[in-house]
């Protein structure tokens, strides 16, 4: 601060600060948390939020995910009519109902899963995506019910089902009801199987706990995004239990591939093409025309 600014009365000082902020529009620049490269926000977005320098896959919202995945035409949402309730009247340092309201305000979503019917390269499918910024993408009754409605529609319409997981696990604030969503989602998938319809599970950063330990690994094909954290127990809990340093890259997508837990790691920019190829192969359809690289 210069000597001149120090002399100014506080009112004028504040005004100057506001003006200074206005000159730099918010969110123009973005610093990659992985390689520290400073990137243009628009460049990053054009690259599907993958860092052009180091390939770091940034977390994206559920709607952005589905928007980038699905063909522009013929999409509609499934299960938006299902909304959360606070059955247990759960209260920790804050009430669950308050947490819900603020999550809804902050994310613009009603709960942590968005499901849509649409198509990829003109192949019809039902796709679900977790909203991680909604209470850590935690799975409660609404997530379970929307997932199941998506699966049922896929069975009815004879379409594959694709799910992009991004979740810390079960939603504690719904107690045992949330644990039961693990059983519910898995049970729904048996119907998809009986109808010989593919379920492709994509594990994105992060996929942990009750979501990881239910439908996530039940995909006919299990895909992970590069660098995604995937596991059952959190690293901190494991460290407290075993009291030893965890191996390099523990619970990362590459670690899981090496240990035979996932089929492949797919770059977000190739996801549409890969899904289309897998679906056509599984359903014995001819190859589809893809976008020019």
């Amino acid at each position, binding site marked *: 601060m210069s000597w001149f600014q120090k002399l100014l009365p506080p009112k004028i000082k504040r005004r100057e600060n506001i003006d200074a902020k206005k000159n730099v529009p918010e969110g123009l620049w973005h610093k990659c948390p992985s390689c520290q490269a400073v990137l243009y926000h628009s460049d990053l977005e054009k690259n599907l939020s993958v860092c052009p320098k180091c390939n770091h896959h940034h977390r994206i919202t559920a709607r952005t995910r589905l928007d980038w995945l699905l063909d522009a035409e013929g999409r509609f949402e499934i299960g*938006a*009519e*299902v*909304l*959360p*309730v606070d*059955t*247990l*009247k*759960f*209260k*920790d*340092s804050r009430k669950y109902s308050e947490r819900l309201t603020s999550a809804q305000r902050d994310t613009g979503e009603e709960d942590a899963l968005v499901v849509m019917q649409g198509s990829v390269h003109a192949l019809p499918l039902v796709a679900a995506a977790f909203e991680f910024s909604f209470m850590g993408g935690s799975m409660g*009754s*609404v997530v*379970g*019910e929307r997932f*199941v409605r998506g699966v049922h529609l896929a069975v009815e319409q004879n379409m594959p089902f694709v799910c992009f997981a991004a979740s810390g696990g*079960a*939603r*504690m604030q*719904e*107690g*045992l*009801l*949330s*644990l*039961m*969503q*693990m*059983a*519910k989602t*898995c*049970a729904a998938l*048996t119907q998809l199987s009986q109808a010989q319809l593919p379920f492709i599970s994509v594990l994105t950063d992060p996929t942990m*706990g*009750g979501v*990881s*330990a*239910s*439908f*996530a*690994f*039940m995909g006919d094909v299990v895909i992970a995004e590069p660098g995604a954290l*995937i*596991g*059952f*127990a*959190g690293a901190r*809990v*494991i460290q407290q*239990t*075993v009291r*030893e340093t965890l*191996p390099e890259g*523990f*619970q990362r997508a590459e670690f899981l591939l090496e*240990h*035979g*837990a996932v089929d492949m790691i797919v770059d977000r920019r190739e996801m549409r093409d890969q899904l289309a190829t897998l679906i056509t192969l599984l359903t014995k359809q001819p190859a589809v025309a893809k976008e020019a690289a």
Partner: protein
Amino acid sequence: MKVTFLDFEQSVAELENKIEQLRYVQDDSAVDISEEIGRLQKKSQALTKDIYAKLTPWQISQVSRHPQRPYTLDYIEHLFTDFEELHGDRAYADDAAIVGGLARFNGQSVMVIGHQKGRDTKERQYRNFGMPRPEGYRKALRLMKLAEKFGIPIMTFIDTPGAYPGVGAEERGQSEAIGHNLYVMAELRVPIICTIIGEGGSGGALAIAVGDAMLMLQYATYSVISPEGCASILWKSADKAADAAETLGITATRLKTLGLVDKIVSEPLGGAHRDYPAMMQAMKKALQDVLKQVQSQSVDELLHTRFNRLMAYGKFKEVEV
């Protein structure tokens, strides 16, 4: 066996101590003090009844983890005959935290599977405190498939703090092992009867707890996360475990109201560990009844009911969009 008393039972412990001393004195005393002993025993019972009539969820959680509580192998010993334990997942190891095998229940073939904790330090370590690794869940899955092949009903006993959080467990696919069980149990073509006998610890419990009937002992608990774990995440302090236990709704009565448990099996006064014979009798009766009930349905009916029941889990509201 000398009963271990919990913190909130200290007044009972003192009385029982006094009774013990009087008994010792009586042996070499000319005066008959049996009347006094009888009076104290009545008092001790009344006191226990009082305490147990108003247990808090956190206290129930202590009872569910009582070191003398009957474990899966105790139920197997008392309620089943011809138990033939089967070992291993055929891929990696035999996990001692889950036991299972063929047995007879009232003469009928059944497959019994359950978590197993240990009694002393050595056995606790051997059983890994009842915390299974993927091998345990895969062994359970193998035994369930075996039961399905021969049309044998399955009874599972749930009693675990949770699935083991270890490096090896993660490397060998703890998540996949649990998820796979949930998936297969949803469509397994034999009756599955699940009983929570102690601690129902999250996904590690659920992995052998999907079925046609859900029984729960009076002082057992079943929760998405341990009260301590919940407290340390949401309150940032494990000291708030009692509050967490309260709000999580982990007790049999609360879960029955929520429709997640079908039947509560009553425990003897002071908990299952205070009277094994009475506990076994109550359990036998409960299992008998529910087995008869699930076996009265055809397999297709059974699967239909099981599926609808799974789909009905959850509470939400619906609006017009």
